[in-house]
């Protein structure tokens, strides 16, 4: 991380409505290529925010930075009021050490485009792995928690199968259960339906609908499923060139996009369908 002046950033966010996730002037670049340019984005507790935009617009990077899979070059990310990328030392912020990262990261879960289940473990073992080996739950507790979640995603019958024996949609449902088993406050979905055959997309989106309905989770979702984003989001952000070009309620953004680039993108997407 480049040396930067962090004096303007609070040590923690306080007040009545502290956002669950807050990006403050976050910049990410690879060499001279700026992927995210001074991004400001707040996500309230329990809010479902969809991120759309053309490829290369920086939308996946937003999730990856929040999951600490990518470092940031400038700004601060806060989770649940506390800085994630930094930690307070005395009266100033310094880059977070691995201990701090682990503590804050525990609040975040993520599902990936390619599922990334552990191939040497069954569906149930995939779900139990984190609770047993990271949270320190007993095997019995972890098993109960995992079985409950596998039931929620409709995978009880396949719980003893290895991922290689599961379809893409089934693997993604297990991956959602695995992430939920860690009891995160924030869930990140990174194009979770992009690698799926069209006929099984519904089984995954239905699980996400269920999460929205039944849990008070804060969610950030990068997606190409415009219809799905429109249905379930509280807010939609359209990314273009590393910035939020336009954001609003699904009705406003999809029904009456104000910016020309949003209109172009949405009409291009509609043509593709």
């Amino acid at each position: 991380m480049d040396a930067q002046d962090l004096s303007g950033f609070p040590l923690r966010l306080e007040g009545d409505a502290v956002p669950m996730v807050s990006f403050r002037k976050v910049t990410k670049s690879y060499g001279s290529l700026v992927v995210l340019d001074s991004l400001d984005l707040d996500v309230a507790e329990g809010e479902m925010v969809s991120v759309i935009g053309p490829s290369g617009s920086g939308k996946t990077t937003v999730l990856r930075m929040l999951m600490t899979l990518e470092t940031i070059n400038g700004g601060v990310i806060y989770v649940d009021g506390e800085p994630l990328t930094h930690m307070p030392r005395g009266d100033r912020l310094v880059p977070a050490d691995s201990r701090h990262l682990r503590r804050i990261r525990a609040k975040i879960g993520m599902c990936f485009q390619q599922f990334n289940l552990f191939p040497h473990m069954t569906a149930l073992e995939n779900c139990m792995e984190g609770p047993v080996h990271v949270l320190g739950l007993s095997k019995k507790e972890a098993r109960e928690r995992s079985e409950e979640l596998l039931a929620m995603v409709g995978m009880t019958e396949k719980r003893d199968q290895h991922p290689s024996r599961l379809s893409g949609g089934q693997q993604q449902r297990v991956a959602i259960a695995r992430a939920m088993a860690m009891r995160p406050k924030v869930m990140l979905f990174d194009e979770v339906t992009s690698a799926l055959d069209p006929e099984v997309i519904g089984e995954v989106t239905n699980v996400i609908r269920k999460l929205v309905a039944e849990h008070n989770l804060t969610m950030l979702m990068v997606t190409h499923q415009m219809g799905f984003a429109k249905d379930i989001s509280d807010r939609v952000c359209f990314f273009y060139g590393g910035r939020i070009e336009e954001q609003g309620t699904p009705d406003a953004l999809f029904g009456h996009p104000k910016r020309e680039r949003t209109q172009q993108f949405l009409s291009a997407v509609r043509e593709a369908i």
Partner: protein
Amino acid sequence: MSYLEFLGQYGDRILSGTLVTVLLTVLSSVLAIAIALVTGLMRLSPNAVLRGIATVYIEIFRGTSLLVQLYWIFYVLPLFGVTLEKFTAGFVAVGMNLGAYGAELVRGAILSVPRGQWEAALALNMTPARRMIRVILPQAVLIMLPGWGNLLIELLKGTALVALIAVADLMFQVKQINGTTFLSAETFGTALIIYYVIARFMITPFMRWLERAMQRKLGRA
């Protein structure tokens, strides 16, 4: 003397040499695997000192002759106060040498575990050590097994050099027999066949079995 008479007379010594060779192979393999694992992981460490030590180790043991290393361990180390019994010196030299080759196998296999697996383990908030032990290594083992099959055969053949420090292995015994009988074709022919049989009918099937067992664990078989 017919070949059967030859076997009748010298079979005991050939058998005892074979057992020593097998024992050497097993002990060297265990040592080589342990060294390969530790050195391979050190090569991937974020710590530059650990990386440096591993690199130097691999360069020395891969870049110089096994025979010279064997002589060093047996004849030179005592000058520094470290005296190893010849059998020990033998399997330590072979194990350390092949361990250096194995380290690169371990490193390569770990690096070829898909990136998504590392990321999923991080997303579950695993510590780097736990991620390596629970997620990456089990998958890396399957990737590196075919390479280890080759390496263990190399190792078996490498053990023949310990005859040169008078460890009574198969090679040592047949050399002795040849020295008194001059039946070179019978003695070295028998040794040739025994080495081949150990490699082809013991090591290779064992590695295949291991591969299948690992694949079953991944639900692929």
